[in-house]
């Protein structure tokens, strides 16, 4: 508990720095390209179009996704929401887990705590995500899914997504500094993650209830469904299933606490692991 509070305090105290550093992070990644930061948007757009082409259009045409009794939406709109969340999550975890050991040599002797390193790396991805999110809102409205009262849920889900992703990246940043293999392990697990998360296909179509329940244990499912509820104006997802909300936050808090304890235990010796 003490560890959690300490790490939290560090995050807030250095928030200005976190923000500035995340901008430099993005800049240093894209300085060489002629199109610069535009690639941060171009890249996911390409990726989404490929998935859409393969799963939604030509090769394996999908039917509309039934959401409520009288609402079905075309696969592409349904998928695109999950995809954007997933791309943020995936890149944040991969880069977040590398964040400490790749920077430690440079950052070991600076006037800030190392717990903010994964934070600014995740935040730099989050900026990109927010950009994509704004585009997504435009696309949705142009396609006839208009702004509705349930958009009020967005701040909550945007925050929850960041907190959850950061917590997981924070745990991984310590683990993969100590054991580098974690990095490899993560990469292969996450590649699979796309297919076992409810992004490219609808969990409700699974007849087997146990499997469908197991799928829903994935915290990403909670977030993605929340976004979908809002975009398509289905309802208040937060209150729809309170137990699910409690479950999501328990997982997040456990991850963050575990990450804090682990981080504080090892941070003095990070440099010896490099």
């Amino acid at each position, binding site marked *: 508990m003490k560890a959690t509070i300490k790490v939290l305090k560090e995050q807030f105290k250095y928030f200005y*720095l976190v923000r500035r550093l995340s901008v*430099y992070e993005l800049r*240093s990644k894209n300085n060489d390209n002629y199109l610069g930061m535009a690639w941060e948007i171009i890249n996911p757009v390409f990726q989404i179009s490929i998935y859409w082409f393969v799963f939604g259009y030509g090769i394996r045409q999908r039917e509309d996704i039934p959401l409520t009794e009288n609402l079905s939406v075309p696969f592409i709109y349904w998928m695109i929401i999950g995809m954007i969340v997933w791309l943020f999550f995936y890149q944040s975890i991969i880069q977040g887990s590398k964040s400490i050991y790749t920077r430690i040599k440079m*950052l070991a*002797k600076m*006037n800030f705590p190392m717990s903010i390193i994964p934070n600014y790396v995740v935040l730099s991805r989050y900026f990109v995500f927010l950009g994509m999110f704004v585009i997504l809102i435009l696309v949705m409205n142009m396609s006839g899914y208009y702004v509705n009262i349930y958009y009020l849920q967005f701040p909550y889900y945007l925050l929850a997504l960041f907190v959850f992703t950061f917590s997981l990246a924070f745990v991984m940043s310590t683990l993969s500094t100590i*054991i580098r293999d974690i990095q490899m392990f993560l990469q292969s697990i996450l590649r699979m993650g796309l297919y076992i998360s409810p992004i490219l296909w609808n969990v409700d179509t699974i007849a087997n209830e146990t499997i469908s329940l197991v799928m829903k244990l994935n915290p990403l499912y909670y977030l993605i469904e929340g976004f979908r509820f809002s975009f398509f104006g289905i309802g208040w997802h937060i209150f729809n299933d309170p137990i699910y909300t409690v479950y999501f936050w328990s997982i997040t808090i456990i991850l963050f606490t575990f990450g804090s304890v682990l981080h504080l235990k090892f941070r003095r010796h990070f440099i*010896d692991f490099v």
Partner: protein
Amino acid sequence: MTISIEIKDLSKKYKLYQSRSERFKDLVLPKSYGKDFWALRHVDFRANKGDVIGFIGINGSGKSTLSNIIAGIVPESSGSIYINGQASLIAVSSGLKGDLTGRENIELKCLMLGFSMKEIKEMQQWIIEFAELEDFIDQPVKSYSSGMKSRLGFAISVTIDPDILIIDEALSVGDKAFAEKSIEKMKEFKAQGKTMIFVSHSINQIKNFCNKVLWLEFGQVKKYGNVDDIIPEYENFIKEYKKMTKKQKSVYKRKVIENQTVRGNK
């Protein structure tokens, strides 16, 4: 006399592993695996404010490890260290990001050191002038020559005005004019009464600049005292060492390693 650095019974242990499985076992199991390598053993020394200390010793004697510990980059394994004020290490091109331009690097580094944007704007002009980078300041650092990099690193480090300055071979790169300029700056710091540590192989630089010398051998303090007392002795040692045949040198080196390596017990 105020004490600036006080180090008591400081040791630094590194682990040497024969294989990956050994490394893994050591991490997971309570029993200890692998050999211990003592980069520093029972180092005691004290520096007063205003001292300029040269660290000398042949390669692998622990000079860099000690200066890294004083700078707070590497943690010690045992013993205690007291630092009065903020220590800053200047190493060649320390912590510059190759993808960013020189200007961005200045901002980034100063931000991380806790300066506000306003202060940085003020410092920037001075840094750019001192580093003599001119048009290159808006080019990515990876296109810099090594001299440019170390000039920029040096300029940033001296602007932040630390209480204790640790200079690790930083002045050996760059041309003569810049080296002289840096020495001038160092002298200014010296006049201000800052504590400085010089890690160098150049006996001349140490003679000119330092008032005390810490001579390290096998990770232990061999001698610590005034420049005039120790440098002649060190010069003799270096002469002897140079005279040694290849075989003698390797025997000597092996002795060093055996001295510092111990089968570990946790």
